[in-house]
């Protein structure tokens, strides 16, 4: 069966806005992304929402709990269920985060950063390979934001990421807001970070808003509009790696659908410049 590739600008389908979104079916949005954990083993309105989304849009999947840096065994039953779920949706790849999310059967439901060490890279590579085999499709890893120094230099994260990608064969889901947040929190050049990444591995881009606390610490909340600097970093990234599907994440403080579509249109304008460049 032909897997539908993701193209253009997508929107994270969150339950707070899913019904309004699917009723309106805005043409500005090219695809939607779901978290499998929000639909698997779930009843009520959720199976119908997913079915409606599939009918009208290509659907991508982005996991929350495989967290490739957790030093405990995967739950085999969950991997089997996830494989069946992804097979049913026929997604081209599945993404999850390069982080720690809990161990020994406990889930923190948050993305805890890993130290940028060889030991952590080996752990991630091993688990990514295991996940790719179990899910029978490519896996993309997402760089996370962090608020706790994980090394001497912020750019060590990019080297860590490149090492994991090279050894595991994984794709990269590049979150440009996370790169920006980390660059401001830890004082490095976000463009230099992007320059280090292998362009041919970047399967998709995530973008979102963040908050700046009174003490200056930036927190990746997915609850604010995208700031201008992050739009600029997106523009720079696409200029370097070429057009890629972009996904707008908005998980908290969800505004009106019109407000989100305004952001989608801005993203489309940026993407279209680079799509035209690629065609030329």
């Amino acid at each position, binding site marked *: 069966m032909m897997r539908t590739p993701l193209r253009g600008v997508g929107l994270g389908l969150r339950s707070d806005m899913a019904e309004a979104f699917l009723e309106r079916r805005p043409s500005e949005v090219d695809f939607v992304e779901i978290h499998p*954990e929000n639909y698997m083993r779930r009843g009520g*309105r959720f199976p119908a929402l997913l079915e409606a989304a599939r009918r009208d849009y290509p659907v991508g999947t982005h996991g929350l709990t495989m967290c490739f840096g957790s030093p405990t065994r995967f739950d085999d039953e969950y991997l089997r269920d996830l494989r069946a779920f992804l097979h049913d949706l026929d997604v081209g790849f599945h993404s999850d985060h390069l982080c*720690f999310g809990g161990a020994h059967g*406990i889930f923190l439901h948050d993305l805890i950063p890993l130290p940028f060490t060889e030991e952590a890279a080996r752990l991630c590579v091993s688990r990514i390979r295991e996940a790719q085999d179990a899910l029978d499709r490519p896996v993309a890893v997402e760089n996370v934001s962090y*608020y706790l120094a994980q090394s001497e230099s912020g750019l060590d994260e990019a080297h860590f990421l490149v090492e994991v990608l090279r050894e595991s064969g994984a794709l990269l889901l590049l979150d440009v807001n996370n790169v920006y947040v980390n660059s401001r929190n830890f004082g490095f050049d976000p463009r230099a970070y992007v320059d280090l990444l292998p362009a041919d591995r970047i399967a998709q881009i995530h973008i979102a808003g963040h908050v700046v606390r009174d003490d200056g610490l930036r927190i990746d909340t997915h609850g604010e509009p995208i700031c201008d600097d992050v739009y600029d970093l997106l523009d720079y990234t696409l200029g370097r790696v070429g057009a890629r599907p972009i996904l707008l994440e908005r998980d908290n403080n969800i505004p009106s659908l019109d407000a989100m579509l305004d952001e989608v249109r801005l993203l489309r304008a940026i993407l279209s410049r680079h799509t035209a460049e690629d065609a030329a």
Partner: protein
Amino acid sequence: MTLEARLFGMQAAFLGPEPSDDALAALGNPGRLRVYRALVRAGLFDAVRRALPRTVEALGADAETLFDAFLAEGHPKTRYYWRIPLELAGFLETRLPAGVPPHARDLLRYESNRWRLRNEAFDAPPEFTSLSFDRPPVLTPARALLRVGHRVDVPGEAQVAESRILSLHRDRHHRVAMLVLNETSAALLEAMGASPDRTLSDIVQDVARARGVAITPSFIEKLSTLLESMLAKGLLLGSLRAPSR
């Protein structure tokens, strides 16, 4: 410190009792680790607040103390964020201290059951056809029967003490619907759920006999009204389809 020790240490620091700066310093910057501790706990508590808002309000300051105990002793063990309130409800079932407002226990059961019915996947019901007294009745599997001591189903009246039997179920539109039942109606519903092979006629006679209720025209009229209501609301789906020959 090994990677495992560091990660397990962070997990314990985020879920366990408030750690000291010295304990956190072994893992990294104590101030930033406290940022993570706050983010993790706020994210988990938000799931509870969304699902059980009236329970949280009724428990007041105890809500956070009890949630702390859940994180430290019960731990969030589900990968499904929407199931966290159900895990908490299970943990608290036998642990709500005597000092909490008396209606809080009923609210917890009421709200957590509503959340479960809204969200859980249930097995499909067996094949059914229109209701007949000569066939076993088929109920929706997404249902719960609660006996509570307060008017928790009435907004603003949860503190009013009153014995109530509430039948909750997920309807065809994925909403949670409710019937307030008397003891005989509740016994009938329980018998329907517990006796999948008995005909509706047998179930009605069993319940009437057990409760010492005479099957009079008045009883039959009330029974018809109840069955119509259960059918209209989607609690009772019909009668088990006869096996094809």
